[in-house]
């Protein structure tokens, strides 16, 4: 097990237990590894790299409840990044071109945390615009809690929603965001 795996796993597990600072550091480090991984595989579509980094980060966040502590983090992240990469290529190229170029083997997995790339290009797709298109019951909780930094209770008071509805709104909103990305490449 390499040291990046151990360090990232530690940060993620603290994040899953509720430590937002560790979780943020996990996502930051992860983004550099994802960028290196995707840049190498999207050599012919360089403009899509940063979009796919963001899409993968959102997917990792939305699916974080499926990570089990006894599982290698590399394998889990790799499967998500690979899934999103295949999904993108499918949208771009159609099914035929796919199997020839993306016949990955398990040997690729350990590579994911080896390379990192902190040089973020601009994303082409603006997630802020997509967020603005969410219905209010999802958009307001995300804006208040995730962007302005209010607590769940404050956001509930501000919007007149219940605290449970605020939490559900955030959760569904981020899932809906991933759905919007998927439908409009």
């Amino acid at each position: 097990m390499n040291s990046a795996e151990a360090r990232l796993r530690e940060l993620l597990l603290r994040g899953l237990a509720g430590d937002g600072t560790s979780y943020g550091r996990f996502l930051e480090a992860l983004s550099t590894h994802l960028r290196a991984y995707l840049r190498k595989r999207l050599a012919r579509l360089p403009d899509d790299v940063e979009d796919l980094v963001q899409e993968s980060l959102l997917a990792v966040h939305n699916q974080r409840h499926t990570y089990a502590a006894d599982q290698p983090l590399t394998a889990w992240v790799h499967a998500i990044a690979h899934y999103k990469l295949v999904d993108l290529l499918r949208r771009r190229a159609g099914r035929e071109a796919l199997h020839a170029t993306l016949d990955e083997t398990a040997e690729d997995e350990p590579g994911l945390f080896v390379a990192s790339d902190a040089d973020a290009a601009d994303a082409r797709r603006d997630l802020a615009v997509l967020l603005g298109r969410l219905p209010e019951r999802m958009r307001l909780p995300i804006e208040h809690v995730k962007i302005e930094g209010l607590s769940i209770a404050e956001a509930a008071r501000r919007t007149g929603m219940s605290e449970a509805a605020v939490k559900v709104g955030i959760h569904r909103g981020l899932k809906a965001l991933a759905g919007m990305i998927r439908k409009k490449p």
Partner: protein
Amino acid sequence: MKTDDLISLLAAGPVAVETDAVTRRYSSALGWGALGALFLMTILLGVRPDFWAATALPMFWIKLGVPGALAAGALPAAMRLSTPGRRLGRLPVMLAVPVAAIWGLAVLALARAAPGEREALVFGSTWESCLAYVALLSLPLFAAALWAMKGLAPTRLVLAGAASGLLAGSVAALVYALHCPEMDAPFLATWYLLGIFLPTVAGALIGPPLLRW
């Protein structure tokens, strides 16, 4: 939005999650699905009248054992396929064992039988209803298994759908066996397995469009 801003957004606010989501989802799915199948079986068919007498016969237990063993392999397979990066390991072999065993028993029974009796051993007297009811009883289980998977993150969608169908079909066959009066291995090896096979194929087909995320 810059990637750093997205990271700040994702990390802000409460980020904790339940850590045993896979187990919890599959417990509810299997519980409710099996309850639905048992309910359908009870109102549509009823448990076989000689149930208690039948429990003394080895064939009764083989009849529960084959779909039971398939379900015991299909459940961990579906759970692993619901999580990114998990491997199936030896589960495909585990799933092949009950199939090979019942086929072995069937061949043995057919070889021993007189030529004129063989057709009756395969078709029994209820093969149509076996096929139809195993498929029907699998529906609540199928819906529940897909619900469980839909809330998780399968990345191999054909296999994931097939595992959901296999889980649904094998538990449905287990439930149907409580009603079914047939006691011959060739019948089980044909119609039970076909009944389980149908939802498995259906799952492989609807997996990719249904389970995407």
